[in-house]
């Protein structure tokens, strides 16, 4: 859209001042993008939910598993897909487009680890990939386990 604005103005022979341009960009990115971003996040997140549902149904009927096992396999397949697409280079662009629609589902967890692994590859195997793979995903596990311990102890001792 911005390139279009610039092109139109160049065609008119009317070169915009930097300030004017920035004002137009701000107006477009501030108001319309917030609503657009959340709609895109809603649609992509919902689509992933449906894909998860479909995969679970497929696995439970095809491999004759319980739906609990099938949902574990579904999560593993989503992780596999997002790791593969991240290393092939597609997934970064998609995450930039859909933002939270891909970050909040389990694909974001896999993407954060995979991209950290690739990014720090040049720093070596041990201090590069090994110690940086959990750089972003580590906080999820850290705070998840910390709070889950409290909740589980309270529920166990409270008996509900």
């Amino acid at each position, binding site marked *: 859209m911005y390139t279009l604005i610039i092109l139109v103005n160049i065609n008119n022979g009317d070169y915009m001042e930097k300030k004017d341009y920035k004002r137009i960009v701000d107006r477009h990115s501030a108001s319309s993008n917030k609503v657009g971003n959340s709609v895109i*996040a809603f649609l992509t997140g919902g689509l992933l939910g449906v894909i998860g549902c479909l995969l679970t149904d497929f696995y439970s009927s095809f491999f004759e598993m319980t739906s609990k096992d099938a949902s574990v396999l579904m999560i593993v397949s989503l992780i596999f897909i997002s790791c593969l697409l991240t290393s092939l280079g597609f997934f970064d662009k998609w995450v930039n487009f859909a933002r939270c629609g891909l970050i909040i589902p389990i694909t974001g967890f896999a993407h954060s*680890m995979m991209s950290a692994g690739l990014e720090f590859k040049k720093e070596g195997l041990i201090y590069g990939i090994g110690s940086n793979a959990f750089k972003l995903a580590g906080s999820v596990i850290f705070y998840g386990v910390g709070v889950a311990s409290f*909740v589980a102890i309270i529920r166990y001792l409270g008996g509900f």
Partner: protein
Amino acid sequence: MIYLNSFIFVGLISMIGQIILDNTKLTPGHITSMFVVVGALLDTFSLYDKVVDFVGPGAFVPITSFGHSLVHGALMGAEENGLIGVFGGMFNLTAAGISSVIFFTFIFSFLFNPRD
């Protein structure tokens, strides 16, 4: 029907995350950690179990289910071995996810090079 519920539930969670991301200075890292904590906290009164019953397998897709699965794994361990089982069983249900992420990252980061 269960597909529609999954679509709306996962979509709503993602949208809430996006609204937080757009209107505050929090980064995606903050938001994912926050949602895991929220998922674990919702399990204090087994609220997330009701969501899972209502939504179906789609409820396991967002990262909030990670906190939920951690709590349930810990409770499974606690039923078997008492209080120490909370720590022994913590990763009972999430182990498949975490191990597979590590495994795939391990393989793919050797096979592929980063692209710009």
